[in-house]
């Protein structure tokens, strides 16, 4: 199975989790994803995802002055976004446990 297919299912939750820790702008989010090992993620994947999250109401984007000077678009989690993140975390824990059980059974076989 290609990594991209697995990635599509989890990237949204990961982005919500990173924004949930602190408000972030696009480049900062990209750096964070790369630091966590998602090195294949490019802007062509991230920016449509951010637009989708904003449209869904999970995040809000606000232009703010940055320490370096130019305004940047910072994303913060909304209440709905926090609920979406909690739901993702619960689903991930459940699926993770189920996959681990299958793999453990496969190893025993």
């Amino acid at each position, binding site marked *: 199975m290609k990594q991209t297919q697995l990635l599509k299912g989890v990237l949204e939750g990961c982005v919500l989790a990173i924004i949930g820790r602190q408000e972030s*702008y*696009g*480049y900062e989010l*990209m*750096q964070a994803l790369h630091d966590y090992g998602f090195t294949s993620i*490019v*802007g*062509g*994947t991230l*920016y*449509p995802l951010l*637009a*989708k999250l*904003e*449209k869904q109401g999970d995040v809000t*984007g606000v*232009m703010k002055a940055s320490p370096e000077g*130019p*305004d*940047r*678009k910072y994303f913060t989690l909304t209440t709905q976004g926090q609920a979406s993140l909690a739901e993702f975390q619960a689903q991930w824990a459940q699926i993770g446990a189920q996959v681990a059980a299958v793999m453990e059974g496969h190893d025993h076989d």
Partner: protein
Amino acid sequence: MTKDNDEAALERALERLTAGDRRWFAQVTLYMRLCGWVRDTAAVTGQLTAMAQDLADAERGGQDATAYFGNSPRQMAQEILSQLPLIGWPVRLKLFVGLAGFSWLLLLLAAASTGAEMQLSAFQLLVLLGCLGLGEAGVMRSFAEMAYAQTLWRPLLGFAVSVVLCGGAAGLTLRWAPAWAAVTVPTPWDYWVIGVSVLAIVIGLTQLAGVRLRRLLDPNVGLIVLLLGAALLRRYWLNTGTEMTQGQAIWILAGFGGGTLAYIGWQLLNVVRAHRLSHE
């Protein structure tokens, strides 16, 4: 933020980029603006500004636009546009009025040239509106494709096909479609209808050009005045039972023919200008 402030913020963000990345971004901007003509302008500009600012940060980190955004900018633009809000109702209304005005113009031209009394059909007007709406969507898509076209022939072909299909459908409608829900306009009210229509369409299109087509000068106003002037003359001859003299024919041919050639030339110039903008 006002529209001018939004554009100024985008310009400032673009100035921070390298020359190569500015060219890359100009293509994305052109594509998103033309493909996203039904999307809220402020949302499109805001999205582009945020991306340009992040790209400036990526450049400081040693990346260029392709490394940062990937190798599929068109797909990225399409996916972003699909998430942005649509234009508001006031702008939708202006666009609709513009299309309706042009449909009315075509209906008027056809009706003014036939019959002792002018007949205007609501059914034909609605069909024309549909044809022109589809034609405009096709034309805007062709212009958007120029952003990434290495040669002009494919987008020009798309433009020509949209115009021919739309124009052909409009012509067939006016020639063959049934004149259901028609209103007959007797003399001298037909002159008033044509005259008031000229004023209304010119004022309406000038407003629309100010909103949506500011960067590409719109010669449609001149073309409309020419066409409705011809309609007025045709109506006069039909009403008075007279025919055009040779001298009148020469003047009309020179004016109308020259005006039409100028219109086509101006539109082609806009196409070339848009292509140059995307490849600067």
